[in-house]
């Protein structure tokens, strides 16, 4: 199993994400944003957190137009698995791979703390949790206020594409949404950081489970 982690100027969770993938049994290749194609034989693409291109214009907007992203989109369109965390989630909404957008936090403050989440949608990313299970993951963002029109929100809920919901909404996100899935459930975007809670030394291993079953589930997929 091979995972590619995309690196933009300003990415700062790329290595953490790579470690989390490695611990789950992936061989990881770091892929620079100027590359035009993903390495061959990739099973999973990770779009990491950080401040790609300094968050200029809008968070994720410039990264979404970086050369490599065209191939990430093609990979996803062919049914490839993509995980976008924090800034990676913002990039995925900017590309249109996931609906909606992330606005400035309702209270305007950058929030960095561990929050509660309820696991909902069914996917390879969430199946190692039980449905409705409450877990804790760290968030660290200024623009995590998920926004979409009511039609889109209704659709996401009707199709069970809300992967995670905040138990105590920290940022004003519509319907407490912390993470969503694509229509084929193979693209997950989420503001909380599972890679920052993936080994004992982190003081929390709730995030490790998101990665842990990926290799076996992708084999079966």
């Amino acid at each position: 199993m091979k995972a590619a982690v995309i690196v933009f100027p300003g990415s700062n969770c790329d290595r953490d994400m790579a470690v989390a993938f490695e611990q789950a049994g992936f061989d990881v290749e770091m892929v620079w944003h100027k590359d035009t194609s993903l390495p061959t034989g990739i099973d999973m693409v990770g779009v990491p957190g950080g401040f790609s291109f300094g968050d200029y214009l809008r968070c994720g907007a410039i990264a979404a137009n970086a050369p490599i992203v065209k191939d990430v989109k093609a990979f996803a369109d062919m049914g490839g698995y993509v995980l976008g965390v924090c800034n990676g989630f913002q990039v995925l909404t900017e590309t249109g791979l996931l609906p909606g957008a992330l606005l400035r936090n309702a209270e305007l403050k950058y929030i960095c703390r561990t929050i509660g989440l309820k696991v909902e949608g069914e996917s390879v990313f969430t199946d190692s949790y039980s449905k409705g299970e409450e877990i804790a993951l760290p968030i660290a963002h200024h623009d995590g206020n998920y926004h979409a029109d009511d039609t889109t929100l209704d659709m996401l809920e009707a199709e069970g594409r809300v992967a995670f919901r905040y138990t105590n909404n920290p940022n004003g996100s519509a319907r407490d949404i912390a993470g969503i899935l694509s229509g084929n459930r193979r693209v997950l975007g989420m503001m909380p950081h599972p890679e920052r809670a993936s080994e004992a030394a982190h003081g929390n291993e709730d995030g490790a489970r998101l990665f842990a079953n990926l290799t076996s589930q992708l084999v079966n997929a």
Partner: protein
Amino acid sequence: MKVRVHVMLKTGVLDPQGEAVRHALGALGFEGVSSVRQGKVIELELAEGTSDETIGEMCEKLLANTVIESYRIEHI
């Protein structure tokens, strides 16, 4: 040619920054400010004859996120 693109959050999209500015104006003693909306102004220097269609494409593809923002093109 010069063009100014105005990008604003769409009506109905919460603008917490505008809200904060409104509160700050109130705190300074300015009364009667019932709403503040904050946006962006982007000035572009373009080759003569660049069509509005091309500029519109720039807005759609990069300058504005039309999920949450609207834009207006002004020739200056």
